[in-house]
């Protein structure tokens, strides 16, 4: 089958690619745009490792078609640090040792970023429920929750 041409905006850059209509947004990011920071842990929406921000909201990129990116704005983990400066969340994840293997980290960072955009002062409980769709098998989540809360605090103080 003929491929479809898609024009989209990723991390602020105009991007174009050709894809099969059956390919997912995650496939396109990884295989056509060399943005391999979004990970496939399941391909069926259960693990959150593929989380990206799509038109301002966090979604699983394995559950969107690549063709749906046409004309849309997408942010991925690759765009989180700005000009070599880490986002506060990234910094806090390192300081709190909130990652072991790190495969879940890009997805969790994207989901946390979207949380802090909507809720500047989340409770522990809110963070845990917000991140329930992001599986981490290494950490037991404790250090992740601490890192997000600490990042929220610092973001409140710096703004």
């Amino acid at each position: 089958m003929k491929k479809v041409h898609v024009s989209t905006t990723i991390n602020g850059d105009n991007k174009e690619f050709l894809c099969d209509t059956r390919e997912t947004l995650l496939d396109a990011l990884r295989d056509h745009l060399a943005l391999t920071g979004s990970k496939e842990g399941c391909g069926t929406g259960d693990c959150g490792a593929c989380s990206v921000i799509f038109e301002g909201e966090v979604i699983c990129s394995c559950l969107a078609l690549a063709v749906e990116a046409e004309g849309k704005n997408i942010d991925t983990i690759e765009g989180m640090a700005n000009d070599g400066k880490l986002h506060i969340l990234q910094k806090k994840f390192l300081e709190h040792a909130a990652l072991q293997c790190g495969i879940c980290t890009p997805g969790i960072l994207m989901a946390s970023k979207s949380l802090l955009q909507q809720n500047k002062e989340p409770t522990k409980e809110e963070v845990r429920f917000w991140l329930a769709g992001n599986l981490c098998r290494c950490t037991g989540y404790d250090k992740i929750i601490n890192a997000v809360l600490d990042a929220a605090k610092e973001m409140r103080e710096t703004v």
Partner: protein
Amino acid sequence: MRYEAPQTLNQAVNVFSEFNGLKRILAGGTDILVQLRTDVIQPELLMNIKDIEELGKIELFDNFWKIGAGVSAANITRNKEFSKEWPGITEGVGLIGSTQIQNRATLVGNLSNASPAADGVPALVAANAMVEIVGRNGNRKLEILSLISGPGKLNMKSDEFISHILIPRQNKNSSDCYIRFIPRTEMDIAVVGCGVNLSVENNNISAVKVVLGAVGPKVIFSEEASNSLLGASLNADSLSKLQEICERDAKPIDDKRGTIDFRRKVAGVLAKRAVEKAYKRIMEDS
């Protein structure tokens, strides 16, 4: 696979009705993309309806709410006015999947997927909601229980799809509730679900609908359970009777998510808890 993303409802009706072959609507995609990936279905046409503006709205009319087929779960739960009026429907919608799923999944998709365990459906049935169906020959309305014919099956013609859900305004001294049971706190499909819609007059139950999910091939409206509460006051007796009837009315199967015995028992427990919670809501409001 052909992919279409029409901009208007008219275009959508045309594209969909003119295509002969295996076709599906793409709403949030949180069911259908999983089905594509796992080879459950291989449609020849997938039509995305999320870019259609008129399907992306929640509107309030004199005596009903109208929710477009493209509205995400997150946009329903964020709507303060709606969720205040229908906390139970909102609970059901809010339970669908994770944050990420919420931002994509639609209530119409939840309904159209016709899974007996769909969290959005029991409270809709309890609220007497209807769907608006569009097709080659115009619109029609259908009750939800008549729409769903079995697991994964809808009573719709091949040129038709759902454009809106219509939910009546809630009555005075009434409220609804949806509770489900899952083994974790999140990210599970309901093992049992229960939606109720309740009205109270002079401390007695004046209208009630009890609906069970995940305990049969489709949602079960338990008429007997509902009738058992009618005119009664809420007390240990009426609740235990309700519990007993729901245990009996549940027709579950044994599977990876639960046993028959377990599901029956929990159906009774949830019905009791959901009625209590809805009742409490009414009392708090008045």
